[in-house]
Structure formats: C-alpha cells, structure tokens
C-alpha cells in the first residue's frame, strides 16, 4: 500500500526543485523537506544567462528566484548526490553523508555537453551555470574578438546575437542545413538565419567543429563540412553549444530506468524500475526527464523554463496523491530573443510533417507559422506576434484534453 510520504528530499536545487518544494508545501506536506544542490547557491533563474546577463545589462540579482525562507526546508547547497539506493531509500552525497527519504523528487537538470577531446585551457567555454556565464562574460567584455560558436541551437544563436551586439566578430557553426532547422523547420530557420546574416555573423551550415587548436590558449578550430573538407578558422574564444546532457551520473547504479542519459518517467511523472514498474514515491521533473507525450512518437525531453515549472507542480501533486495521480500532458511553451526579435513558440514543432506559413515578413521581423502532424495542429511559432500564440496554445490544449495517445 503506497502512502503519502512523510520525509521528502528534492535532489536538484533548480527552478524545478524550488517549484516542487513550493508545490509540496502548498499541497499540504508538513513533514521534513530537504533541498540538495550541487551548485553553491540557492536555485536561480537560468534564461538570462545567455541574454541580458551576458550582455552586461543585468547582474546576478536579475537571476534571483523566490525565497525559500517561507517554506521551512533544510537546504544543502554545494553538495552533490553521488548514489541513490532505492532499497534502503537513501541518497549518498559527495561529502559522505547519507539522507534517508520516504518521498524523492529528482530535479537535477542537465549540463552542457562537454568537448569530447582535449581542449586548450583558456578561451573555451560552455554556458549552463552562473559560473560559466560569468567566465564567458569576462571574455566578451574584452575588445573586439573573434568568437566561434560550435552548435547552432537556441543557446548558440542567442550568444551569437549577444556577441555581435557587443561588437565581436562571430562565426556560428551548425551541423544542420540551417541553424535550428530540425527544431523549427526550414521556413522559420531561413527567417532566423537572415537575422544572423544581417548582423554580420558568418553562418557555416552542414559543418562541425572537429578540433580545438592551441595548447594553453585557444588559437582557433578546425571545421569539417559534409563533403569532408576541412578548414582552419582562427578564433579568440570558442563557445561549445552542443546541447544538454542530463545530470544522471549519480543514478546509473540506482536501478532507475535511464535512456541515453535521460531519466525515464511515465505520464504521471513517476520514475520507473528497469523492468518498467512505476515508483510512486520517486517522481521527477525538469530537464533531467524524458516522458511520453500524446503528440510525440517517442518519449521527449523539454529543456524549457515553463516545462520545469509545470512538471514540478504535477510531480509534487503526484507524490502527495499516489492514488490519484494527474497525467502530465503539457502544451510546451518556449521562447528566444535574438537581435531584439521575440520568438514565441508552443507545442512540438520538431515533430511536424507539414507547416502552414501564415506570415513571413523579414522587413518587419514578423513571422507566424503553424505546424501539423498527421493533419492536426502540433505547434506554432511566431516572431513579434506574441498576440497570436495564445490562440494556438488554446487549440493545442483542447486537442490534448481529448487525444491522450499519439
């Protein structure tokens, strides 16, 4: 018989971890509640790291999230979880301490995918944490430099926008036919690429960075295109924006189901044993998870701010109500600002098999695209047309409410 847990531990002092703690208290949990985080600070907000913070328009205070003080929780920052024992129900931390739990929320998030080979010690960056962003900001505070960005996803594109605004020369290298091609489709990617061209960014497509050159200090990189041709590009700074890697190293010995590093949950935010049995007292939320979604053919990972918030809320509810869990069928919602153009998206455009371009106006920087899969709406993306996105969102929510299978 599964009962409501008395002693709850949240591993991952992230946005998802904080919002889970709030939802647990708001949902009536009065027992012990502990928040564990590997970084030395309380949970903070990450989206500004690749935008206002990097530009120098905002300091660390702009990253402040809600205070944990009203929650009455035990906070353990700067301590990394290294092992989960689901038999004894204990979490082992890197300082040797052991935390028992009755209920566990896993919100350890994801880190920047590291460079797989040797790299120079200076001039090579990733951006995921406050510390990462501070180091890159220091590099960008220097006089004009050549910044090479490896990876043309959202982070790579946003940093290209910031670096050109700061007067740097930027080369953006992506392995797809256009930046963000697979995420938002050819038309939107064409619109976006034009913004980068207009700002003077050199955009290299169908290309990958293969070698980082320099022993101590970075001197440049070797780039291969899809014909196998290599070229050397001198650079002062490299940003590795190669995607996210879920923080699940500590779970490899736990017996929880992992897939390509992601922590698998069922549609009720519950983690699973390796044989697929759901564990109602171990739930998960945020970037660390991969979960089934009615609009997607295979389990998905959403690295979005709004997903961390909404999934944490559902996970907290389901931990407290193991006999009446709520399914998590979110309308994904995400955004990006590049060159002062506001991109707003809902749903899962990456799974579309057709699109309808309702507006494509590069002159006024306006865009409105609907994405379909098997004939039904699956997502939408706008640029400087935020007013239109709510209607799409309503339609997606209505469809999800009545279609709970792919």
């Amino acid at each position: 018989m599964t009962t409501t847990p008395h002693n709850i531990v949240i591993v991952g002092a992230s946005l998802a971890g904080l919002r889970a703690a709030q939802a647990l208290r708001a949902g009536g949990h009065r027992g012990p509640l502990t928040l564990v985080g590997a970084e030395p600070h309380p949970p903070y907000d990450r989206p500004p790291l690749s935008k206002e913070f990097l530009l120098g328009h905002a300091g660390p205070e702009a990253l402040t999230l809600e205070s944990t003080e009203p929650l009455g929780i035990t906070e353990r920052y700067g301590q990394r979880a290294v092992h989960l024992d689901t038999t004894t129900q204990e979490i082992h931390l890197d300082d040797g301490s052991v935390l028992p739990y009755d209920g566990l929320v896993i919100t350890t998030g994801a880190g920047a995918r590291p460079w797989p080979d040797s790299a120079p010690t200076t001039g090579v960056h990733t951006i995921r944490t406050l510390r990462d962003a501070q180091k890159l900001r220091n590099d960008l505070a220097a006089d004009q430099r050549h910044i090479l960005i490896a990876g043309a996803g959202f982070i790579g594109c946003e940093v290209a926008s910031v670096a050109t605004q700061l007067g740097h020369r930027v080369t953006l290298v992506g392995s797809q036919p256009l930046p963000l091609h697979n995420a938002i489709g050819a038309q939107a990617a064409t619109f976006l690429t034009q913004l980068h061209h207009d700002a003077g960014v050199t955009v290299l497509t169908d290309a990958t960075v293969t070698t980082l050159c320099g022993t101590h200090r970075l001197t440049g990189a070797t780039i291969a295109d899809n014909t196998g041709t290599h070229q050397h590009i001198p650079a002062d700074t490299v940003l590795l924006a190669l995607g996210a890697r879920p923080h699940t190293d500590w779970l490899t010995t736990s017996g929880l189901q992992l897939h390509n590093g992601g922590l698998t949950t069922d549609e009720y935010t519950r983690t699973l044993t390796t044989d697929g049995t759901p564990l109602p007292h171990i739930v998960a939320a945020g970037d660390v998870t991969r979960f089934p979604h009615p609009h997607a053919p295979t389990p998905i990972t959403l690295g979005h701010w709004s997903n961390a918030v909404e999934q944490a809320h559902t996970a907290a509810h389901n931990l407290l109500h193991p006999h009446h869990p709520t399914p998590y069928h979110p309308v994904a919602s995400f955004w990006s600002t590049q060159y002062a153009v506001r991109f707003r998206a809902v749903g899962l455009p990456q799974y579309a098999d057709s699109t309808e371009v309702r507006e494509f106006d590069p002159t006024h920087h306006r865009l409105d695209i609907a994405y379909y899969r098997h004939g039904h709406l699956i997502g939408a993306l706008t640029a400087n047309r935020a007013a239109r996105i709510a209607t799409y969102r309503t339609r997606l929510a209505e469809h999800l409410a009545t279609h709970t299978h792919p």
Partner: protein
Amino acid sequence: MSTTVNVTVDMKLCESHGQCVFAAPEVFSFDDDDYLVHNAEPDPTLYDKVVKAAASCPLRAITVEKSP
C-alpha cells in the same frame, strides 16, 4: 465589505512571453503590438487563476493582492 483582487504588472519587466495569457486569458491579453494588457481588478472568483498566472511569469512581473 466585499473581497477585491488587485493585479499589477511591472511593464518594465514584461517581455510578452504570454504565460499569464495562457494561465488566465480572462484577465491578461496582448494588444496588436504585443504589449500586455490586463484587468487590474478582476472578479474575485478568478483569484486562483491569477495567482497561477503570476507564478508562471518568467520575469516575475505580476503582483496579486487580495483584500480583505
């Protein structure tokens, strides 16, 4: 004395992400230029929705007060 709910939005912070419009469309919407407009004194029955809208704002630009 009847209950009132007051909603304020710090427009210096708002970046038109639209999360509040999703959460409480009765109270929040955009104008044609993507600026957020809202009902500053919504019906008190919408209180829970407005609180949810405030929590969903990535800029934490929304403040909700209930009185008495």
